[in-house]
């Protein structure tokens, strides 16, 4: 189709078409002895008084106003799955000098979107028609395009097609003149503006010739600058025009939909934010408390030196480590924390009853002591056991207990039983009562030598029997501190949340920065490529240049 339209335009006078041995078509001018691969066109007849060509900036603006259809902004380049570059539009050439497109290879039929229709019943979805008659759907909300049309859009597109067919039929039925007159009137101003750059390009146009409009209906082919006009025509049925403001607005709306604060999706300066939109604020006390929480959670020994903590490097991976910014501040907080912690520990120890070292030792004796071993033998045999090495108990005491225990083992069982019951009876009701578990007997019993004399099974039966005969414990009540603990926990949660908020905010900012950077880089790369293209003078380019000189 491309080629067929191509062939229609007749060669200018003096030019003949030939086939090279390689199969390429080339053109030869017998009068000037010029030959070229690109199809020459007749130098346009000078048009009667026309306004001078608009400045590049002006023409750009003009085209932009016409263009309008794809969404504006950064995603512009990715518009349309075909990967169409907007910079390559012919209309820009008047201003930029026609180096826009790399034409070293055989010109590809470049595709570009030409019209867009909102799909009924589907918000944010648009059906886009391209220059080559293909079509795809575009989601403005996600800013993505798909060649494959999703199933849910099928109905809407069907309706759209029917409507279009109907309109076409109506247009055909109506007298041609009536339809054309208003259209022509509307086109007049733009056509006038279009003319100068098109003419000025003149000879250059010949090299660009190959990108010919491919259209659905033949009728429009004769019209002079078909491209412009078509876009112009399509402009009215575009539902929305996007510009920077719209994008910003959309972004803001999307942000609100997701429940984000302006600070979180960026695009606005920090000053513009309202209070509290940056998440909860963190006071110094909060960050100190966070660091202390961290120390608590990692079970740091408050007695250890700071250097050890730093060397181990366990804390570094935690998020809360960053709550404080400098090592000095961390050390200060750590000092404070360890002081508090040590005080706390000491109070705790003072409160809890001293653990009797005799209890584990006696249990150990019950398990291992036999009349067969003398004390030195026993000691040597078990010298590695922690019960035997415990510094809280003197060796002398150990020996004494061992000897006593061995002596008692030799006594008759009835004596041992009466001794045990006497021991149990001596306990006050608050210590030993019906609710006492056999595994949690009071330390006064456990630390007594009479308790371990009997074999385990017999002893436990006796103790359980005795406990079951006892009355329930006397009433007592102490419910305190629970409220305080609750408050502490809440405080802690709040601090955690504040830190997370801050972190999230920072991540968002970073992402935005990166995005900006990438965008800037993309722009730079594009410009570089343009410059490169401009610098790159191929054979063809030289010829074009020569032809331009000839034409002048």
């Amino acid at each position: 189709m491309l080629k067929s339209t191509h062939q229609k335009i007749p060669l200018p006078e003096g030019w003949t078409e030939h086939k090279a041995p390689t199969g390429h078509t080339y053109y030869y001018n017998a009068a000037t002895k010029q030959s070229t691969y690109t199809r020459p066109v007749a130098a346009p007849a000078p048009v009667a008084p026309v306004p001078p060509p608009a400045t590049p900036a002006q023409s750009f603006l003009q085209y932009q106003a016409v263009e309008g259809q794809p969404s504006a902004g950064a995603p512009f380049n990715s518009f349309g799955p075909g990967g169409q570059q907007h910079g390559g539009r012919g209309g820009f050439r008047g201003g930029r000098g026609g180096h826009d497109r790399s034409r070293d290879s055989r010109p590809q039929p470049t595709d570009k979107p030409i019209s867009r229709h909102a799909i009924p019943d589907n918000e944010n979805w648009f059906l886009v028609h391209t220059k080559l008659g293909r079509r795809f759907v575009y989601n403005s909300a996600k800013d993505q395009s798909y060649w494959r049309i999703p199933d849910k859009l099928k109905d809407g597109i069907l309706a759209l097609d029917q409507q279009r067919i109907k309109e076409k039929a109506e247009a055909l039925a109506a007298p041609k003149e009536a339809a054309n007159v208003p259209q022509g009137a509307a086109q007049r101003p733009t056509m006038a503006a279009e003319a100068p750059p098109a003419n000025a390009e003149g000879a250059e146009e010949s090299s660009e010739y190959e990108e010919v409009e491919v259209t659905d209906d033949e009728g429009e082919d004769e019209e002079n600058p078909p491209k412009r006009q078509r876009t112009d025509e399509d402009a009215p049925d575009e539902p929305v025009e996007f510009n920077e403001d719209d994008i910003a607005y959309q972004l803001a709306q999307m942000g609100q939909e997701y429940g984000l604060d302006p600070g979180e999706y960026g695009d606005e300066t920090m000053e513009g934010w309202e209070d509290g939109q940056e998440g909860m604020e963190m006071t110094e006390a909060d960050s100190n408390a966070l660091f202390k929480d961290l120390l608590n959670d990692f079970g740091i020994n408050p007695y250890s030196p700071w250097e050890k903590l730093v060397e181990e490097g366990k804390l570094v991976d935690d998020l809360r480590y960053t709550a404080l910014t400098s090592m000095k501040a961390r050390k200060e907080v750590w000092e404070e924390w360890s002081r508090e912690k040590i005080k706390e520990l000491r109070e705790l120890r003072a409160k809890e009853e001293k653990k009797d070292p005799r209890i584990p030792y006696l249990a150990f004796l019950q398990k291992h002591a036999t009349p067969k071993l003398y004390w030195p033998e026993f000691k040597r045999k078990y010298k590695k056991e922690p019960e035997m090495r415990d510094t809280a108990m003197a060796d002398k005491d150990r020996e004494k207990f061992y000897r006593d225990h061995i002596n008692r083992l030799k006594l008759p069982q009835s004596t041992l039983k009466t001794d045990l019951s006497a021991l149990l009876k001596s306990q006050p009701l608050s210590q030993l009562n019906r609710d006492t578990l056999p595994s949690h007997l009071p330390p006064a019993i456990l630390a007594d030598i009479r308790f371990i004399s009997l074999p385990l099974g017999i002893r436990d039966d006796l103790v359980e029997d005795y406990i079951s005969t006892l009355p329930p414990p006397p009433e007592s009540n102490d419910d305190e501190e629970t409220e305080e603990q609750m408050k502490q926990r809440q405080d802690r949660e709040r601090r955690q949340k504040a830190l997370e908020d801050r972190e999230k905010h920072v991540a968002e900012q970073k992402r935005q920065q990166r995005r900006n950077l990438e965008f800037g880089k993309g722009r730079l790369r594009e410009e570089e490529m343009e410059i490169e293209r401009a610098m790159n003078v191929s054979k063809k380019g030289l010829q074009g240049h020569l032809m331009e000189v000839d034409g002048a």
Partner: protein
Amino acid sequence: MPAIRHASKRKAPPAGFSDIEDDLLIFSNKMKDAENAPTTNVPRHQVHWPIFQISHQRSRYVYELYYEKEAISKELYEWLLKNNYADKMLIAKWKKTGYEKLCCLRCVQTKETNFNSTCICRVPKAQMKEDQAIECVSCGCRGCASSD
């Protein structure tokens, strides 16, 4: 380091020693490593630096536990000093104004120097010429003036 005594004659350390036992063990291991490290290729005056430094750290640790954090009892503190876990003389200096950060006792021995002055590390940073990085000869200290 404490002298090794026979187990039967050894008296149990005062209460609270178990809290700091591990850290002291780390220090003593470090000290052993430093003592056994080869000294080939080390300048002669630098050979003892790590020993001084570890000794300083351990003394500082005990000092802070007792005087700043109040984490150990007087009994335990004295026991530690008696058993040479910390340098008693150095701690005595730290209690004096102007000597709060003193690195080692040798650095304030004016009689040992040619001009009867203290070590370079005792000079406050503010009075030094800029960009003058120092490591004192006796213990490798980089500056221990109280104002730093």
